[in-house]
């Protein structure tokens, strides 16, 4: 079901499905894409709580809000408002960046952290591009780099209703707002990843060329005790492209925590 909740004065649209252990799911820069077969698969095992980030979907974006820190505090407040205990924190792509920013601040309400091809950290030098510039390539090229099978990612926007198009346009603008400069990362986050004190699993599509599995290996080295699992035939959105094996890995990991 879709519900609305005001947290820290921000009116959020939240998809909530399933029962059982709570799983807070933070979506990619592309959006929540509730029409893709991932939420209901996760909801067979968990109580999935998936907010649309401020500025995406119909979630409000207050004028004062504009950094990923804001999102981290917002979702820590959301976890408190929902009284989550021993929850699983899952973030994908941009949502992985937000989840990491939360986890370096407080893991009190979470037992485990799963990051799927997160953005948010810079490991290389000034001339190294850790994260593909998604805003300097055509949509077609983006799909080639982000999907093992680009046809699965393509959406014919000419056929979509206006409210869906509005959600897409809002989300693209918000993605730029939060991630334009420095591009899709916080230069200081790398130096705080050591604070993550819950079991952490990094999940990576073997064919992800937005952030490659080599970048994932850098993340593994930066988070104490983290594991990295790569998945064949998947790109930057493995939960959309190959949801079943991803959910198997995820639950095998999370159910031990």
């Amino acid at each position, binding site marked *: 079901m879709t519900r609305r909740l005001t947290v820290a004065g921000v009116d959020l649209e939240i998809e909530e499905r399933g029962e059982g252990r709570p799983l807070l799911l933070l979506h990619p820069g592309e959006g929540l894409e509730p029409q893709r077969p991932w939420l209901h698969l996760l909801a067979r095992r968990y109580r999935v709580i998936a907010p649309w980030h401020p500025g995406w979907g119909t979630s409000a974006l207050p*004028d004062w809000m*504009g950094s990923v820190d804001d999102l981290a505090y917002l979702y820590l407040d959301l976890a408190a408002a929902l009284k989550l205990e021993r929850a699983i924190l899952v973030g994908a792509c941009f949502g992985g960046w937000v989840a990491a920013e939360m986890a370096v601040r407080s893991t009190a309400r979470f037992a485990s952290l799963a990051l799927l091809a997160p953005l948010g950290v810079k490991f290389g030098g000034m001339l190294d591009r850790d994260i593909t510039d998604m*805003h*300097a*390539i*055509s*949509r077609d090229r983006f799909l080639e780099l982000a999907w093992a099978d680009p046809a699965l990612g393509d959406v*014919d*926007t*000419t056929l*979509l209703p*206006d409210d869906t*198009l*509005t959600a*897409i*346009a*809002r989300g*693209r*603008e*918000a*993605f*730029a*707002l939060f991630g*334009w*400069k420095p591009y899709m990362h916080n230069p200081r986050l790398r130096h705080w990843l050591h604070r993550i004190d819950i079991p952490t699993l990094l999940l990576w599509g073997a064919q992800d060329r937005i952030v490659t599995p080599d970048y994932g290996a850098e993340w593994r080295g930066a988070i104490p005790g983290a594991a990295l699992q790569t998945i064949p035939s998947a790109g930057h959105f493995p939960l959309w492209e190959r949801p079943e094996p991803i959910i198997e890995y995820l639950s095998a990991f999370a159910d031990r925590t």
Partner: protein
Amino acid sequence: MRTWYFSEMAYHPAWEAGLAGGSLRVVLPNGNVDPQVAHGLLNRYLDEFALCDAEGLDIMVNEHHATATCMTVSVPMALAVIARETRRARLLSLGNPIANRPDPVRVAEEMAWLDVLSGGRIELGLVKGAAYEIAPANSNPARIMRRYWEAHDLILKALSTHDGPFSWEGEYFQYRNVNIWPRPIQQPHPPIWMTGMSAATGRAAAEKGHVVGTLLSGGIAKPMFDAYRARARELGWEAGPDRMAYAAVIGVGTTRAEGYRRADLIAGYVRTAPVVAEPFTNPPGYNTIPANVAMLRAGKKKGRIVADRNGNLIDATQATVEDLMATDTVFAGTPDDVFAQLKDFNTRMGGIGHLLFFGQGGHLDHKDTVENIQLFAREVAPRLRELDPPQRAAAE
């Protein structure tokens, strides 16, 4: 109607390479520039600007970045040269792309300095900048107009404050001691101009009382000018032609054929300038949500599509001079032809006080450019200055 000559100072020798690679901007490597050729061109273009002073025209300069269409990278640098080479012409910066400038106080300093240098001849355009300027500047396209308006307000306060320093703790800009030296000759500040393509910009400019300009499409200009006049009336004042500016490609010749030939060469700009690699044409946030919804609904498009007076769509990258005349992008022919076309245009637009005369563009050589400037300045501009504002009825 006043006439302001301008040229983008194109590096046309690289246009073919840009067209072949699918972008004249952002991603066309600067290995395509021969700096010695650029040296000759820049000096030639500056000579052409200087000529306008002797011919009684005013002068406009703009800037773009990382492109073969425009080598002017800095309005204040170009105007500094032109200010020293001219005596009478008013000098219009159109403009300073303040949403892409990290330091608005620096903009205020530079413009005040130019106003002092030129003896109070500066007109100050504060512009959003084109969509493809976001990438070279690496400015955030989200909330760009909020950043624009904060920079705008700060620049005007910096220019007009004489008992500073003052402090500014805004959302985007923070200074603790703003106190520009020297201050401008024109008080409280030089005339301010804006540019735009929408009725919303027309209304916003009216609320400030600034001059508003647009370019190359009568179909875009008219609703913007109408919105300006309507908003001014709501606010209790009547916006005259001196608040409206329009940029067009103009080719004049002693024969109609010569005028058309010159216009066709200058219009090479119109056929190349819109050729930009896809991701840089619409960075997210640059355009409004409704505009983006319309684009998503329409799907992919090619080229710069403009509508002619009958509503027919024209791809500017392929257009003939006649096509471009039908969209008010180009005015061409003998001086009598061009005056008649501009007089008609002025009436249709409800009165325009400023014509931005795109009198050189790429392949138009120096001899043709000089003749184009001289013929326009001597045979057309004096008649435009005498043009009466159209009756109110025409504006409705």
